[in-house]
Structures are given as C-alpha cells and as structure tokens.
C-alpha cells in the first residue's frame, strides 16, 4: 500500500467516524498501527510488558478523547499521542526526557525531504556540499544514498554501531540541506 493510498484510506475512515461516530472505524485505524505503536513503546520504555500497557492506554485515550481534538492527520497525531504518553511514564520515573522531546511535523518532514532530493538533481551542487560535511557524515551519506547500502553494511564497513550510522546519516542529511541552501543563496 503506497503512502498516498494508505493516507486516502485513513482519511475515508476518519470521515466515516466523524460522520457516524461508530468507534469501530477508529478501532480499524488503531489496529493498523498496533505493531508500530508497540515498537514506539519498546523504544522509549525498553520493556515488553510496559510497552504493551502503553499501547493499551493509548488505545483507550484515542477511543475516549478523540472527539476533543481536531485531528486532520491521524498518523502524526497518533504517533505524538503515543510518544508523549511514553515520555510522561518516563518523567514519572524521574528519567530526563529532554533528548527525546524533538517535535516532528510530518508535513514539514516530507516537504523538507522532497526539497532536499529535488536539489539532489543538481549533482554538482550536491557533490560540493557533500565535501563540506564532516568525514564520517560524508562517508555514511555516500554509502547510504549513493551506493544504496544498508545501515548494517555501513556499520560493518566503518566499524561503527548501527545507532552511530543512523545518527551520522540523519545529521549529515540535515547539514547537507543547510549547506545547499547557503550555496544557493550565495549564487
């Protein structure tokens, strides 16, 4: 199912729920995200039972509180709801959640990415920008985007952990965008 197709189906279900108030529609939507919600729970809570509880609590929250919110983009809203719930559990345990509290706006996320790879077509500019990146970021970006290698392959080749590879790619991508924008403004 493509992103567009999936988004349309979600929109149809949301519209059906809003017009009928049948919670089965919300249930269908939720069920299609159970695995991802459980994964998010595992990432933050690092415990299977705690992650399962957090998913159930998020289900309940969505079923009882959905009508109080103006939700237009269900997936982003559900992710934020689950993540915030996990962070709240961590804060109650006295864990510092500051490193996790980065807000992602999905539309902005996709637009930024599209813009970046539109600029990728200008290969000379991309090449110049790549050379300005720090060495590790540059290598990770080259292996990932140009040689189409997986995190695991890059980690093995560069003797890094998977987390480090992912972090270099994410930061490299962000820096690449900044450098390309700066270069374009100078032109």
């Amino acid at each position, binding site marked *: *199912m493509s992103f567009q197709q*999936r988004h349309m*189906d*979600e929109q*149809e*279900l949301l519209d*059906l729920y809003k017009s009928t108030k*049948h*919670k*089965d*529609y919300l*249930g*269908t*939507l*939720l*069920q*299609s*995200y*159970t*695995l*991802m*919600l*459980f*994964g*998010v*729970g*595992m*990432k*933050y809570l*690092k415990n*299977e039972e705690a*992650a*399962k509880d957090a*998913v*159930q609590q998020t*289900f*309940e929250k969505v*079923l009882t509180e959905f009508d109080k919110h103006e939700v237009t983009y269900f*997936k*982003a809203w*559900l*992710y934020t709801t689950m*993540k915030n719930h996990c962070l709240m559990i961590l804060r109650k345990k006295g864990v510092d959640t500051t490193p996790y509290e980065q807000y*992602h706006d*999905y539309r902005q*996320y*996709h637009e930024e*990415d599209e813009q970046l790879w539109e600029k990728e077509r200008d290969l000379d500019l991309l090449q110049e920008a790549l050379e300005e990146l720090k060495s590790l970021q540059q290598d990770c970006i080259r292996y*990932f985007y140009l040689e*189409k*290698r*997986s*995190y*695991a*392959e890059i980690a093995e080749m560069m003797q890094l952990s998977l987390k480090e590879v992912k972090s270099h*790619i*994410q930061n490299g*991508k962000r820096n690449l965008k900044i450098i390309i924008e700066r270069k374009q403004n100078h032109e």
Partner: protein
Amino acid sequence: MNKSSHISNGSNEEKMLQYVRQELTPEERHAFEKEMLEDPFLDDAAEGLSGVSNTANIAHMIQELNEDLKKNLQKKKTQARHRKFQTPPFFFITIAIVLLLIILLILFFSRS
C-alpha cells in the same frame, strides 16, 4: 471490527517484522531504511522492535493487543446500548416533583 477492514496493514507489518528479523535482502533493507529516515514514527517503531528479545513473539503480542482492542470496543458498544435504553434517574425525579405539585395544587384548591 468488521467495518472497513480494507486498511489492514499486513504487507507493511510483514516488511517491518522481516526487517527486525533481518530477513530482508540488502536492497530491501536499504529501501526500508530510507523510508525510516523520512518517517519518525516508522523509525522509532523499527528501533524499538529491534530491542525485543525474542522477535518470534512479536506477532503473538500484536495479536493479543488487537484482541484486547476488539473486546474493549465491544464493551463500549454494550455500555452505550445500555445507556441508551436505561431510563435516566432525573426522569423519575421530575415525574415525582410534577406529581407532588399536582397533589399540592389539588389540596390547595379543594380547601379553598
């Protein structure tokens, strides 16, 4: 949960599970990771699922969560139906007050 089951995310779920179990080809793995970089929800989920000690249990746990969700929805439906057919207490209170007023009025007029 028979309404709109067409949104079933089976193929995406399968891909995610294959990724976590390291069953994807290098090309598929790269494509999935590229998708992860563009989607923070997918990224967090894949990272979290990779931390599950026994990945063979994941599908079973998801099934359990979905069964609980179905039961919860069914419970909410039954509660809503009960609420619909249950006469609210204020209805009886109102009737009692009106009857009392009528009796008082009758008594008042019959005396005068």
